[in-house]
């Protein structure tokens, strides 16, 4: 501390977001690096298990890294069919389809909702936004039963929509995008109105390009939810051909055979990779959005 004071000779307070390395940072690295290692190690381990031959999976002592990596687990996973004869690829395809539909629908309704909340004055706005803010603390598992009743009453069971609709309206996503939209200057919109632009044109040409980071965040969050969701496949779909990869992984993981262990790990990796890649691609946009995430 003293050294730094002498060297810089001035304010020695915040060292937030430093450009360069200094000795004062060592203590943070000493804490953060082992912790980050602890956080990521289980994931690394599982990814490695996906590439282990059967003999290695149950070795004692257990291996962290695959000594003889092989693609066999993936090969047998893709060759595998469920007990009802539905091939693995079908589940994968279902997952992709359901995820694309949900993310797209969520994007449209989030853009419209966020724009309306941020830039329109209408009756009941404050109350509605307050309700949405309360819904941030919504715990879906608490109302699984009444949700089930609603879905059966609407005859949504055994349809594709049952995968999509319950996850398409996401209070957190709308909240984040709305907070981000708040900072677009009203003058921009007013100018467009003067030029005779219609509402949807304003949204498409002005709003969407400016709130891209927030939309990226909303996509990441929705994707994580849908891609990993098992609720619909478990509760609302009885037809195996309409279930998703996450559901299939779940049923694989409860199967205690040696062969299943390798395939479970392989399926986990298949589920996890898209998630990680999407987040890495969008992480700077996510962080940009987060700076407007506060609840005031």
């Amino acid at each position, binding site marked *: 501390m003293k050294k730094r004071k002498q060297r810089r000779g001035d304010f020695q307070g*915040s060292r*937030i977001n430093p450009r360069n390395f200094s000795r004062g940072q060592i203590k943070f690295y000493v804490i953060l690096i082992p912790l980050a290692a602890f956080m990521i190690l289980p994931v690394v381990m599982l990814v490695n298990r996906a590439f282990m031959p059967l003999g290695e999976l149950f070795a004692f002592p257990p291996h962290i890294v695959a000594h003889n990596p092989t693609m066999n687990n993936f090969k047998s996973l893709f060759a595998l069919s469920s007990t009802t004869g539905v091939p693995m690829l079908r589940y994968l395809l279902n997952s992709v389809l359901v995820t694309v539909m949900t993310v797209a629908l969520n994007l449209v309704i989030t853009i419209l909702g966020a724009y309306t909340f941020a830039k329109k004055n209408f009756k009941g706005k404050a109350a509605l936004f307050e309700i949405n803010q309360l819904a941030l603390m919504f715990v879906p598992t608490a109302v699984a039963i009444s949700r089930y009743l609603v879905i059966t009453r*609407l005859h949504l069971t055994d349809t594709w929509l049952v995968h999509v609709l319950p996850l398409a309206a996401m209070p957190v996503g709308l909240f984040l995008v709305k907070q981000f939209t708040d900072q677009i200057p009203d003058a921009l919109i007013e100018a467009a109105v003067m030029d005779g632009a219609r509402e949807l044109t304003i949204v498409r040409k002005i709003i969407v390009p400016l709130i891209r980071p927030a939309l990226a965040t909303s996509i990441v969050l929705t994707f994580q939810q849908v891609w990993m969701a098992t609720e619909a496949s478990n509760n609302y779909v009885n037809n195996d051909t309409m279930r998703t990869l996450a559901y299939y992984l779940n049923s694989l993981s409860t199967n205690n055979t040696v062969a299943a262990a390798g395939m479970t790990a392989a399926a986990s990796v298949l589920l996890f990779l898209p998630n990680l890649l999407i987040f890495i691609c969008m992480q700077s946009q996510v962080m940009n959005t987060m700076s407007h995430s506060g609840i005031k």
Partner: protein
Amino acid sequence: MQPVQKNKRKRHFTKEDGKAYLMLLPYIILFSTFILVPVIIAMGLSFTYFDVINEPSFMGLLNYITLFTQDEVFLKYVLPNTFLYALIVGPGGYVISFLLAWMLAQIQPIPRTILALCIYTPSMLGSVFIGVIWKTIFSGDQSGWFNSILLRLGLIDTPIQFLLTSDYFMLIMIIVSLWSAMGIGFLSMISGILNIDQELYEAAYVDGIRNRFQEIIYITVPSMKPQMFFGAVMAIVNAFNMGWIGVTLSGANPTPGYSGQLITNHIDDYGFLRYEMGYAAAISVVLLLVVYGFNLVAGRLFGDND
């Protein structure tokens, strides 16, 4: 939260209002159908006896009275478990994620991004994946990771059935939950800390702040109250949303000796296994109220109450 703006004159519903509602309509429909209506139905059902087959019959407060006076499992296991678990994973996880975010803000951008990614990754894995990983680690035979370490260190002679006995079950649940708790609230706090105006710190040092601890208390936390509030809401919701963890790890509901039984498992137990929907709904309402209570406290601490 923002105060409700009162219009000076009573305004009629105009064409502009209509347009706004038209654009909000898709969100309002889906939100109502899958969030609002289920909550209202749960409240309604909680005053009835309902077995799915027959029409619900009104019972008044009987479900709530039974829950708090007769339900031995609830009073003896579920309630204490839930509070212990929620306090450690909620506020505990929250403090940890703030400290991690604060430390990450003090290092250079590139290592920060990498370390933050490592810490954030577990939170995006989803229930199935988390189950697969930790069942492998705490597997009850010698190829289980933790058992093998303990065996090799000579601390135990025979493998421990971590996930089938009640001794360590709650501890494991808490570790796993904290591990996957550094999610979007954590990210929000990192950017909150990074965005604090540097001049505030300078001014504070002129005013006589002496050390890093005072800096956190007087500058960092008050300057990022909105992010602190958002992070708190996310931490609380996450703690209660992780209710499935015990059942996923043990593969059974109820968990071994009710050691990891949380209020969400109790709801599933009565709703989906015993088909006592009215009673399950009453437990749901209690859960929603508890979550709301926690959030009120967070609002008191970080909300805009000037």
